[in-house]
């Protein structure tokens, strides 16, 4: 496989990150060397999903329980007003 190139600006947009020019340059070099490392994988045929039949996932019952209080949860919010989290205007 030929070396793939990462479009830093595009991926940063998807990841909701921004870099100034100097940072972008540093990241471009580093990310490219990381991609060059990880892309060396052997060809393998698709042989089904990786599951462990002896230890399957167990979902709990979808039931309402008294877990955390609203006030306690909101204590960590950066900005709260009238029991709600404040965010910038989202609808024009």
């Amino acid at each position, binding site marked *: *496989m030929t070396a*793939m190139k*990462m479009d*830093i600006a595009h*991926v*940063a947009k*998807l*990841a*909701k*990150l*921004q*870099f100034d020019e100097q940072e972008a340059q540093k*990241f471009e070099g*580093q*990310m490219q*060397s*990381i*991609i060059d*490392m*990880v*892309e*060396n*994988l*052997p060809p*393998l*045929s*698709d*042989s089904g999903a*990786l599951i*462990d039949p002896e*230890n399957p*996932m*167990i*979902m*709990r019952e979808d039931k309402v329980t008294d*877990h*955390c*209080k609203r006030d*306690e*949860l909101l*204590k*960590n*919010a*950066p*900005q709260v007003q009238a029991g709600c*989290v404040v*965010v*910038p*205007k*989202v609808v024009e």
Partner: protein
Amino acid sequence: MELYQKTAAELSKMLRNKECSAVEVTKSVFDRIRQKEDTVGAYVTLTEDKALEKAGEVDQKLAAGEELSPLAGIPVGVKDNICTQGILTSCASKMLYNFVPPYNATAYDKLLKQDMVITGKCNMDEFAMGSSTETSYFKKTANPHDPSRVPGGSSGGSAAAVSAGEAIVALGSDTGGSIRQPAGFCGIVGLKPTYGSVSRYGLVAFASSLDQIGPMGKSVADTAMLYTAICGRDPMDATSAAREYPDFYQNLNSNVKGLTIGIPKEYFGEGIEPEVKQMVMDAVKLLEQNGATVKEISLPSTGYALNAYYIIASAEASSNLARYDGVKYGYRTSEYTSLEDMYLKTRSEGFGDEVKRRIMLGTFVLSSGYYDAYYKRAKLLQKQIAAEFAAAFEGCDVIATPTTPYSAFKLGENIDDPLKMYAGDICTVTVNIAGLPAMSLPCGMDSKGMPVGMQLIGPKFSEQTLFDAAFGYESLVGGFTTSAVEK
């Protein structure tokens, strides 16, 4: 000998024989913290008042003749990515600099139920991404054996605390070696349990299919005691296995006769320092001289494991860390013009460089056009690696390898070269990829005066076999003397 130098098993006996009180043990550990913390820097947060209060309660219960857990009154450090109600849980990130969880992680809750004494929250690489604890937003942690060297990572604070006597035991978490590598670098014992045996509820997610909380201690017995306390099915974690677990500590058996040890040649090749190879093979030889059988095995896909690991772990991280948007908790940027602007600035200011690299890599390998080439192939390789281990375990009980290619490196030595840092994880990542349990145990000091770790890997849910083999080795060498409690 000071109380902080003793093991949990020794202190447990002393508490019951009234040779010391839990308050005395806690005070001894905090005196040691005051003596060493300026140099070592193992903790992000210390909880001395709560610890002394809890120790006082334990003393009262003991005086009243209550039957308590063997871990009651034992001081334990907790890695800062494990949620502790009412105590800052920062993940060593600016992003969570003020996050005080409204609930407890299940593993931590279990420590409280055992009446353990919490010393504080241990430093780590930011969001557990790193191998040296240098990516922490708050501080660097030093190796207690040599402050110019790293303690390893990402559970570097937990390992340094136990090694230095700033905690008797500690909880870490391991996604690609983050318990075993720092345990190896600091000269202590660390177990990465079988995936699904310890609840991940309340462990801040990095790579959910690989993460596992595990115990760290100065001895195999201490590690077995702590593991017995934290393992078990938890309905709050869908990946937690429905099994019953024995008391691994009570069951410890040091007899290694009949144990078959596999030696995978791929783990003793180029890149592993000759001195490290020699010390691990000497340890294996000692087990062989005492009745174990040694055979060479092969795990052919090992050379690709690091690549698959960084693809899978970063892909999961990019998804898990999407939740940090400055809305409901954690850091929010101070000035913004729109919601989008708030997201961008919050995330760009709140995350450090290594976390950004992983998010970028993960986003890239999952993005349209690249998924098949990277993520899907990595997942196929994961299956192949798991199958190779399963085949190897048909002919041996445990596999022995070095924990790391070299002993602890200097602070700053690898931090600007991500590839060099990643390469150090070569011996540990395969275990997470295959969901297996593995331990690191000390096998002596190298010519630099730093501890070297041997890794023992077992089949899924074979923790007792690992503990027994490790306990056998520990007994043969007359106990481990590689921690820094005497420094």
